[in-house]
């Protein structure tokens, strides 16, 4: 008797645990995070969902569904096939997702979906170790132009990933023609790359600011350029690439898309709601405390931005032989 009770208690606990993972309070609005809980896309959905209901922009709570797989491809395929006209569905995406699309790794092209807005971004940085002889972006560019394979560079993405492409965009501006000759090493995260640089394994890191801000504050690394239009609020003294004459913007933005057959009316409605959300203190605060810089692009402007970004990625991927 005792045994059976215990087993049913254990089973009950397991069931509850599993249901807590999957179930959330029901509501008409759903945000799909194409990652596991704790990932970047999960943060996008949970924070935007929370602020949307705090501001009363949606009725009730926003249900967050985690649908990990294929770097967003699983969720993309599901929306394309089953819910292309669902006006209550938004899906988190970012530069990482667009990179996959630009390289043809999603089951359908970029145009399958309608892109709503970006609400914030992690800003790209180019950094060297604090005892590196390279002092400025101009010196780095001169070194790369003289011999593209002289320096070992690295970041958190693989070859053809956003960290790599951002660095190549800078190199391209510096007049490096043989982009494929630049040595690139993939690490599992930005901090991984930075610690390997501190250990002397690589010379230059290109990655997002958010993850490595601690090393910038401690002075372990020297930031040569931040890849944003304006200096970033957390480190206003760090120079942008643009202020040094290198026109590269390297945002790892966080944004949302919706199904491709959603009506113009519903699409515009979402863009409007998201703009209200973006301008609220709640969002500004949540984004800043998560290490993001709040940046807005919405509606048609954002659609154009996504396509332009995908175009650049596709071109560079072709140049370095990642795609044919």
């Amino acid at each position, binding site marked *: 008797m005792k045994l059976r009770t215990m087993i049913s208690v254990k089973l009950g606990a397991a069931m509850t645990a*599993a249901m807590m993972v999957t179930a959330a309070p029901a509501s008409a609005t759903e945000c799909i995070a194409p990652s596991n*809980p704790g990932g970047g896309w999960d943060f996008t959905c*949970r924070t935007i969902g929370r602020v949307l209901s705090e501001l009363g922009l949606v009725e009730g709570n926003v249900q967050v569904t*985690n649908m*990990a*797989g294929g770097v967003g491809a699983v969720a993309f395929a599901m929306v394309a096939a089953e819910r292309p006209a669902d006006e209550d569905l938004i899906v988190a995406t970012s530069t990482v997702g667009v990179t996959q699309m630009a*390289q043809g790794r999603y089951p359908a092209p970029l145009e399958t979906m309608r892109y709503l807005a970006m609400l914030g971004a992690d800003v790209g940085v180019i950094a060297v170790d604090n005892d590196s002889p390279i002092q400025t972006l101009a010196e780095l560019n001169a070194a790369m132009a003289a011999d593209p394979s002289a320096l070992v560079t690295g970041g958190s993405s693989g070859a053809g990933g956003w960290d790599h492409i951002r660095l190549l965009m800078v190199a391209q501006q510096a007049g490096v023609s043989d982009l494929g000759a630049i040595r*690139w090493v993939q690490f599992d995260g930005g901090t991984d790359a930075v610690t390997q640089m501190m250990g002397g394994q690589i010379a230059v890191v290109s990655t997002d600011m958010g993850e490595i801000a601690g090393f910038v504050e*401690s002075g372990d690394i020297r930031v040569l350029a931040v890849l944003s239009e304006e200096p970033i609020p957390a480190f206003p003294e760090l120079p942008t690439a643009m202020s040094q004459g290198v026109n590269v913007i390297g945002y790892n933005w966080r944004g949302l898309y919706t199904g491709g057959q959603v009506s113009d009316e519903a699409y515009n409605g979402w863009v409007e709601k998201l703009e209200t959300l973006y301008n609220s203190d709640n969002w500004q605060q949540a984004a800043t*405390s998560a290490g993001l810089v709040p940046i807005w692009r919405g509606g048609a402007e954002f659609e154009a931005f996504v396509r332009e970004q995908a175009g650049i990625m596709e071109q560079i991927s072709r140049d370095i032989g990642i795609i044919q």
Partner: protein
Amino acid sequence: MEVLSLIGSGFLVALTPLNIGLLLLGCFVGTLLGALPGLGPVNGVAVLIPLTFAFGFDPTSSLILLCAVYFGCMYGGRISSILLNIPGDEPAIMTTLDGYPMAVQGQAANALAISGVASFVGATIAVIGLSLFAPVLARAAIHFGPADYFALYILAFATIGGIAGVDPRKTLLSALIGLMLATVGIDPISGVPRYTFDNFHLFDGIEPIVALVGLFAISEILLILEKSVKDRPKAIRVDRWMPQWSAIWPTRWAMLRGSGVGFVAGVLPGAGASLGSFMAYVFEKQKSNKKGTFGKGDPRGVAAPEAGNNSAAGGALIPMLSLGVPGSGTTAVLLAMLISLNVQPGPLLFERQPDLVWGLVASLYLANIALLVLNLPMIGIFTRLMMTPTWALMPVVAAITFVGVYGISNSVFDLELMVFFGVLGYVLRKLDVSLVPLVLGLLLGGDMERNLRRAMSISDGDWSILIASPISITLYVLTIGFLALSVWLAVRDHRQTKAERLTEG
């Protein structure tokens, strides 16, 4: 002693009623999740992250709760390894090797007690290491480059033959299958999908926990189904309900050695708890297996890997906190949560937020004690599980595994994959192939390959980088020494048996 006063202030943070409550809750939930096959630290942390957001706990309390779950899972993982031969989570696979044979011999209570005490010893040593040397160790670990990690994995795979070998060829085969499976998915270095057959469910590779649960739990169920057709399943005899001190005490050196090996593996961000428990087992076996009792229920074979996996789990917090580099899958989730709570792990964390760091360290000391106190009295209850007739137990195990695996990613594909691995595991066990090397291959293979290729990217294809650092050279010398010793021992044993046969004959 500055450290003592810092820890003292940490205890003040940890000993608030809320934090103690969260600590106990975390330990309990963690032990339970760890004990259930298919549910592990990833589920636990995934369940609790939304909860911490919902209740609006401050970062210190959230971290205390999640770390208590993390440590609890490490404790709990061994329970089903020992009682059911099904590891509760990845690092617990090594515990099946001697833990289950002990249980079959009626020593379940002792095995549980030894593993509980070993977990305590391992985790406590790791926390002491964390509080005394975290910044220094983190600075030392950054000198481990890709080539050095590759050498470390070479050492690990060279010793794999030493785990469970009736036939070393079958062990090798099993490890190779694991290595092959580790290549499935989008290659993170080039972005090219490999062996995915255009199925994007396979883009992220094979989730180790899905393979693990399939290989061990589902195949166990299949084996029992087959057996019960032939003869009535009998519950395992249990000699005694409560453990004996005399069984625990002799394993003290195994625990200490295991803790040391595990701690080193934990501190290195590229290694982690699975490697920690594996290396701890292999080295203990090499050191102590004089009478060939390992793999047949040697208590030291339970003590070493359990101490190793818990001290590795604690050690992995060092690179996470002081460098922001996660040393294992679960610390990666913890890290993501810290960042979203506006805590910036990194070199300045210890100076900027001493409350958080030392509060955490103090609560880890408390969590270890709580877990030991919580776990020892429960041994009697867990041991009675052995008496459960299989017709009642196995359907429950099946239900839990399906629910747990579905809960990871809400994917039916993962369930199908789990069943596939179940059938594979059944076939391999029928052929007397040990499954442990397969899981190790799958767990470690990806990192081994990536580090080799990182080293190659750094050197632009020059192989000499692999032996360019003193660390990698030392590791290769160790590997060669280990292999030479194994061969020498094998030859000696062979001669002895030959000589014995001659004298007898």
